[in-house]
């Protein structure tokens, strides 16, 4: 669905069901340079099981208007604005990669507004390889190729997509090339590189939090994910074997099962 936030049009997938303000809200926040489509194997389930879902296209990404936001802090405030804009007082947040930085910061800034936090492939900081950052800021498609290489585990490189017929690496590449690379991936990578508050923000979080990590994640390794998770009081960790950074697609079923148990327990759906 489309709606306005800060005078810009925003697109969010509602998971194939009409948006219903009477149901608890789950917001999904994508990673650098990507779009709402990365969440298709999680959002539809929740939308069909008692939740209202918004898988956002961040400003300047996918089908959303405006320009890409330049800092993680701005993105965190924008997610909070989304909750207001759709008429809710609270929501559950789910983030992937850069989306983890955004949702951690948003949760720390809005302790009463966010009810649960689910992090996939997260870390407290995501310093960028300078060459990769430069390629993305210079609109070089090689930045996307490198990202797809590093973002998929050894198994994901071979394929085996949970949706029959889809090929991970090429689908991911096309998602990252939906808009001009330097305006999406370039801006996002710089925002990640500049963000230094992740660990401090994590210490302030007191809500139920889940971290899903993957053993073959080269972009946000398990060690970094654990470092972040250990700063959040009572946080749960689930580690997926033989899987890379794109766990939400590479091991979509496993991720959904873990996410489903965590969210339905801590933020129950309407019956």
């Amino acid at each position, binding site marked *: 669905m489309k709606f306005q936030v800060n005078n810009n049009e925003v697109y969010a997938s509602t998971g194939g069901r009409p948006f219903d303000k009477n149901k608890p809200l789950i917001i999904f926040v994508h990673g650098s340079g990507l779009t709402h*489509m990365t969440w298709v*194997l999680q959002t*539809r389930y929740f939308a069909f099981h008692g939740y209202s879902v918004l898988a956002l296209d961040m400003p300047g990404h996918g089908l959303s208007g405006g320009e890409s936001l330049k800092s993680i802090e701005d993105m965190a405030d924008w997610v909070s604005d989304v909750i207001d804009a759709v008429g809710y007082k609270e929501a559950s947040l789910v983030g992937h990669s850069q989306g983890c930085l955004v949702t951690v910061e948003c949760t720390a800034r809005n302790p009463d507004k966010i009810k649960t936090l689910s992090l996939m492939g997260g870390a407290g900081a995501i310093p960028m390889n300078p060459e990769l950052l430069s390629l993305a800021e210079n609109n070089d498609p090689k930045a996307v190729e490198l990202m797809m290489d590093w973002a998929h585990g050894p198994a994901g490189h071979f*394929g*085996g997509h949970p949706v029959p*017929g889809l090929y991970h690496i090429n689908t991911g590449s096309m998602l990252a090339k*939906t808009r001009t690379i330097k305006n999406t991936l370039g801006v996002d990578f710089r925002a990640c590189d500049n963000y230094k508050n992740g660990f401090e923000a994590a210490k302030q979080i007191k809500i139920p939090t889940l971290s899903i990590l993957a053993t073959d994640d080269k972009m946000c390794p398990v060690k970094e994910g654990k470092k972040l998770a250990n700063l959040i009081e009572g946080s749960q960790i689930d580690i997926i074997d033989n899987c890379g950074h794109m766990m939400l697609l590479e091991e*979509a*079923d496993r991720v959904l099962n873990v996410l489903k148990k965590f969210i339905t327990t801590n933020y129950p759906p309407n019956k």
Partner: protein
Amino acid sequence: MSDKKGMDPKTYKFDTLSLHAGYQPHKNAGSRQVPIYQTTSYLFDDVDHAAALFNLERGGHIYSRISNPTVAVLEERVASLEGGTAALATSSGMSAIFLAVMTLCEAGDHLVVSSQLYGGTVNLFRLTLPKFGIKTTFVKPRDTEGFKKAIQKNTKGIFGELVGNPGNEIMNMPEIAKIAHDAGIPLMVDATYQTPYLCKPIDHGADIVIHSLTKWMAGHGSSMAGIIVEGGKFDWMQNDKFPTMTQPYEGYHGLSFAEEFGPTAFTMKARAEGMRDFGPCLSPQNAWNVLQGIETLSVRMKKHCENAEKMVEYLLGHESVAWVSHPSVPDHPDHDLANKLLPNGKGSMIAFGIKGGKAAGEAFINNVKLASHLANVGDTRTLVIHPASATHSQMDEATLKFAGLSHDMIRLSVGIEDIDDIKNDFENGFRAARKPRLVSNQ
């Protein structure tokens, strides 16, 4: 992410993908070879799991008409080789074309189509699709401007064979792709003759690539199969021409394929709607057979092309041959375009005219022994046919002429036998062709 080593992507390359893409042994009992999932259907964990699969909430298999694990390996493998986001395998190349058209079009729609096509494809566009309310304007493949002029308000796409069957005319794919995209419609290319080893149409602007996998991809003349590959670049939401892609679809609780699946929307719709409602599914055994062929695709294609170029040289110098059409020939009208689009080889399909016309052609066909006379191409074995009396025989005289066929034309699909044996066999055929009456009386 701050590792400075290896700043070139290490994603797998063509020959590796041909052997491995789409398959994870650790999820299949460690089986090194792809298992043949000879089953109609798949157990649901519980009612919630069943509902999730039917609602496209999860990936997975329900019923082998819609998808099958062995077939899915083939689909991913071909998608990876073509540089596509997704693929959908079908029971034959013709069913792939039909399904692609039915996914794209509705009654009242129009297509612009190259006139140089396999005879069955011509009949599909000319005679069968009008029964579904879908009309076609045919344009000669070299008439690039003609494609532009033929586009109407209700035109939903351009379709053609990259190298026309059987005359070897080449579509200027990059220019025709631009024409299509300027009009806000996709370009669909049948690249059966090339396989992704010789050309990846998506790299040259095609949006949908279709193969009869029966031919070079499977390669051994054993199994029928087809496939639709999606490039993922086409923006279905750029205009209001494709409401079945962009508007809520009643068949899946108001799902918008374009919004939900973006770069894989066409494949998702072709499977969810087309396979569900038409059902031209590929058998797992045939998918497995095609996978065996694809494992050696690059090795075979090199040999096919090498033999084809030697046969071109042989035919050009032969007294019984009136003309030879193959993109490798320097005076072929599309030779320069072929060098651009087909750098790894110009394919193994040769058309040639035999002196003595139809009678000589028939005598030639009847007297070659190594070359097989049959209605297929892209076998490991050398194949010959006389199109005017076989593959294109259902066309009337005017349609034959428009399709660029002549009665003296022999279509040759060069195999990977020893080249000397193929030439010796052809010598027998040519000898008989020079004395057609004498041979036919023997």
